[in-house]
């Protein structure tokens, strides 16, 4: 996986729990957990927008591109 999800870092910085964030963003805790554990295959712009809005951050704070080392 070359896109790293740093949601847990941002959540820790903002001191927000998974359940609270899921409720505020309007998605289920299970889906937010899928995103947090990097199991998601895609993220909707609307979801990203809602997360950034709640955590008061930029998409780049949550998603990070890591080049594969070959």
């Amino acid at each position, binding site marked *: 996986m070359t896109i790293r999800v740093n949601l847990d870092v941002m959540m820790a910085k903002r001191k927000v729990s998974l359940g609270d964030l899921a409720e505020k963003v309007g*998605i289920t805790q299970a889906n937010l957990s899928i*995103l947090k554990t990097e*199991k*998601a*295959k*895609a*993220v*909707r712009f609307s979801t990203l927008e809602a997360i950034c809005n709640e955590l008061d951050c930029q998409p780049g704070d949550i998603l990070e591109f890591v080049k594969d080392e070959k």
Partner: protein
Amino acid sequence: MPKILNNKLVAVADVVLRIIWYLSIAGTVFFMGKMLLGPVLGITEYSSGLVTPIEFSVNEQGTATFDSDQTVPVKINHAKGFFKIDRPVPTMLMVVFFLLNLVVSGLILWVIYALWKIVQSVRQKNPFIVKNGRRLRIIAFSMIGIELIQGLANLIKMLYLEPRLNFDTILVQSKIHISFHVIVAGLVILVIAEAFRIGAELKEEQELTI
């Protein structure tokens, strides 16, 4: 068709396939066991006799009566039947036919099992899974495989057995029967299997889109 009727049909298919599956397993074990254990148990009929279907030419004439006053002549020129070569059958021939039957039986069991599992997934309202695509592919390849193996068996009969058979009134005429309907049906199922696989992948992707 009403939804309830559809559900009932799927439930019936599930039960029927379950019964067929267990009967097929029992039948295969029984016959293969008899064949393999024949010499041990002293059942020479199953261990050394060769029973196989064959086609032959005949020249039989008869009549057919449709109304009380209308009788027309009928001829039988070509017929299918089973012949049994009594022991001692050449071991090599027995081994070849045993292996062909074993492979065909295995493929038939595989098809029944895959079909049963697909029906079960439909019953659980979750048919669009990658596994079902794989199962459909198994069914398709097995159908094509069974047809080709039977063609091979016919070829062996035609080239090896037929010149060695002598009867007074019939002329044995084996043909290589490869049903192109079955091959085409197998190819169609292969395409459906691929569509299933793509559909299942799309579903998974959609489910993992947050």
